[in-house]
């Protein structure tokens, strides 16, 4: 259901937006004409929001096969003069680095805005990564908003800036901003649309050896203009109370923790505060003013000590001896997302004041509570076809007497790494399962090498690696866990689904056909809900001498449930025949569906509210005690 406020033409009205919706609204207010992305938490809702209103606003919105393609789509439209938005999660920028490092030198004609959402704490990612480095690497501007209102306003500004400078402009988000919700005051929707026209200019658009240094010079000549256009931007703000001897520099969401901590610690009149919203170029005049006023500065920023190092360089340049503190001095942690309490503690330490929100007695009670509270590991959903596939791989390995090394990939099936399945031995980045498996296969290990990869991830980056496995004869089994969705990020369609981002029917790309075209001759497709057949199929694959592919295909259980609800189809949950249950716990220790619980006799029970009726636990049970409820 699209958020009705995305398209509302009511300047000044305050509405509720998720951070990502605010980014999307910003693009709509700026008159965006093309939007492309590949789904990735925490960035996915940006393109989803734009796609939900694309027809109404005459926007071309697409889920591209990967971030690099999405960005190249953006380059093509922006050099044709159109206002273009490309959005991605932090690791997506690694994919776009190649074209980015050329389009920064050709420049663009229509505004090209790249939103990159970092994931401090790696809540939904393989790593923590500070994408701000890319703005210096590519020598292009980057804005960093701190709340949903600034998120919207920053995108509008980024489009203006991009067209003024003829450069792509980054907007950096983080999970805490993209997935927060807050009130946003709407702005005006730009009526004007850029004209679409490609002006042939090989000296500019053809980046070949003889002309590239000239374009690099052009980029360097832009740097002064970049500084002039951004120093006074609304995203930067310096508050300099009279007599302040200490200062704080903060960026993004942590700057909101600083504001609140100053209030809780009664420091508002004592500490100077420079809130920075432009990462590149930094507001050096304001930084110098602050450094020349105070004795010490605390830099509060998430992920790397990026600005902290630059502030040190600026201090050196103006021969300033202020004590610059932050991550490098151990005042703030190097890893994980900040919280209000991390910032409160750091600021209290920096200013040498006390902060303790709880009495001693209360702290003891909190400790008592912490002793009782159980950890809650994330788990695959009840009825998840991936759990069934992993169970069958485990059975096939056992029955063939093989030991396996399983190279995993990015998606829900990564949860197969956790007990009781414990069926992932490596995870790197998108598509890395097959590439890493190629290396494992050539390492002459005694184990059988298996790569597990989802359908969307296979299309994103698995194909070149699969070609490589056939071409270079890597003996291994590639299991494609095809659940017909990009499920982990929220069920976006992909080329294998035959549906576009705007819900239109399109060509359906067939995984099996692709695998065959990659040079794989042994391909079998199986339904993981059929445990016996899937196990047999995998046993054949594991015993094969050549690289082979097993496609384990079954619709995502959440998607299927949603579809059933819509159609009013009732679920037939399973139940336990108590007389037959031997309390062996095989269903839990080997399979581990969250719908399986325990009664007071230690026998299995099934939570009918959670059960999807997939039947797999019934096939797992050796005693035949789990049956469909009558």
């Amino acid at each position, binding site marked *: 259901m699209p958020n009705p406020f995305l398209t509302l033409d009511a300047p000044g009205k305050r509405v509720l937006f998720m951070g990502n919706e605010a980014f999307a609204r910003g693009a709509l207010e700026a008159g965006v004409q093309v939007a492309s992305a590949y789904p990735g938490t925490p960035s996915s809702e940006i393109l989803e929001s734009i796609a939900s209103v694309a027809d109404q606003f005459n926007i071309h919105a697409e889920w591209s096969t990967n971030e690099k393609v999405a960005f190249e789509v953006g380059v093509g439209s922006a050099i044709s003069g159109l206002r273009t938005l490309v959005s991605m999660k932090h690791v997506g920028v690694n994919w776009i680095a190649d074209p980015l490092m050329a389009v920064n030198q050709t420049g663009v004609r229509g505004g090209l805005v790249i939103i990159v959402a970092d994931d401090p704490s790696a809540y939904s990612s393989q790593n923590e990564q500070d994408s701000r480095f890319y703005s210096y690497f590519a020598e292009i501007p980057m804005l960093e908003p701190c709340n949903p209102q600034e998120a919207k306003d920053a995108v509008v500004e980024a489009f203006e800036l991009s067209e003024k400078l003829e450069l792509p402009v980054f907007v950096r988000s983080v999970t805490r901003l993209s997935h927060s919700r807050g009130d946003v005051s709407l702005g005006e929707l730009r009526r004007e649309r850029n004209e679409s026209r490609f002006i042939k200019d090989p000296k500019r658009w053809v980046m070949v050896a003889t002309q590239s240094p000239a374009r690099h010079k052009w980029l360097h000549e832009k740097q002064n203009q970049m500084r002039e256009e951004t120093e006074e931007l609304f995203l930067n703000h310096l508050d300099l109370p009279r007599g302040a001897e200490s200062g704080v520099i903060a960026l993004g969401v942590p700057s909101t923790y600083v504001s609140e901590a100053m209030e809780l610690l009664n420091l508002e009149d004592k500490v100077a505060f420079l809130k920075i919203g432009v990462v590149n170029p930094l507001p050096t005049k304001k930084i110098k003013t602050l450094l020349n006023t105070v004795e010490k500065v605390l830099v509060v920023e998430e992920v790397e000590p990026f600005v902290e190092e630059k502030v040190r360089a600026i201090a050196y340049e103006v021969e300033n001896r202020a004590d610059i503190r932050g991550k490098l001095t151990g005042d703030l942690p190097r890893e994980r997302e900040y919280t209000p309490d991390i910032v409160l503690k750091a600021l209290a330490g920096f200013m040498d004041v006390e902060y303790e929100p709880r009495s001693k007695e209360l702290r003891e009670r909190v400790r008592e509570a912490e002793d*009782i509270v159980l950890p809650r590991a994330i788990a695959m*959903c009840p009825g998840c076809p991936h759990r069934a596939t992993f169970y069958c791989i485990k059975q096939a390995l056992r029955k063939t007497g093989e030991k396996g090394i399983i190279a995993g990939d990015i998606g829900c099936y990564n949860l197969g790494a956790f007990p009781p399945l414990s069926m992932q031995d490596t995870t790197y980045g998108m598509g890395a399962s097959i590439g890493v498996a190629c290396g494992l296969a050539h390492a002459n290990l005694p184990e059988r090498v298996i790569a597990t990869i989802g359908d969307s991830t296979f299309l994103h980056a698995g194909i070149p690696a699969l070609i490589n496995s056939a071409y270079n004869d890597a003996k291994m089994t590639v299991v494609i866990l095809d659940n017909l969705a990009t499920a982990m990020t929220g069920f976006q369609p992909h080329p294998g689904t035959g549906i576009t981002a705007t819900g239109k029917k399109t060509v359906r790309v067939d995984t099996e056909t692709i695998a065959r075209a990659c040079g794989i001759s042994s391909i079998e497709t199986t339904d993981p809900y059929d445990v016996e057949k899937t196990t047999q199929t995998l046993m054949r694959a594991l015993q094969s001498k050549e690289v082979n592919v097993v496609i384990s295909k079954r619709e995502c259980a959440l998607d299927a449930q949603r579809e059933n609800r819509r159609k009013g189809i009732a679920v037939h949950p399973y139940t336990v025949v108590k007389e037959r249950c031997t309390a062996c716990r095989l269903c839990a220790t080997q399979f581990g569906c*969250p719908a399986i619980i325990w009664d007071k006799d230690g026998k299995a029970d099934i939570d009918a509210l959670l059960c999807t009726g997939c039947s797999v636990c019934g096939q797992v049970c050796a005693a035949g005690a789990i049956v469909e409820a009558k």
Partner: protein
Amino acid sequence: MRLEEANVLVAGVGGQGNILASAIISKAAIDSGYKVIASETFGASQRGGAVASHVRISRRSLSPLIPEGKGDILLGFEPVESLRIGAKFLSPEGIAVVNTRSIYPVDVIIGNRAYPSVEEILRVLGGLSSKVITIEATRLAEEAGDPLAMNVVMVGALAGIERLDIELAVFKKTIEEMVPKRTIDLNLRAFDAGYGDIKKKIEREAP
């Protein structure tokens, strides 16, 4: 007693719908003239892990997370999650409304750990706050037509404790706007069930 500003926590397990619940509360607060910022702390973007929403209702701009010990109201969708979040964020003056239906973590399903008794959880939570009210929200949602509407029962419970300056009609209008059309009646029944249950409990306590 209505609060001028309120930090509301919604604690549950992924898939229980606490993001929708916190979005309903947030929008109802904005439509009542407040500024709002809300966000979640969670394990992953899909089901099974612990999810806590922080909803900050105020007259000014605040950060998207509640500082430890500054929570005024806890809506606990599940007992262990209520204690996890209550212990960390609830103020000793705060109030907790707890759905008593447990969802077992994988460790309990496998048999590595035992789930603590709900009585014990409530006792400890009681020592960390001014008041704990229990509610069979999942059962009330089932009676309203769908156990998944438990989240909206809990929004009704929030309205029932009458700590926020948000009219009942605004809550109901917000629910109508934010849930799928075909589930509006169901969700309004769920809201009323939660509201009614809590009101009854509070009136019974009154001297």
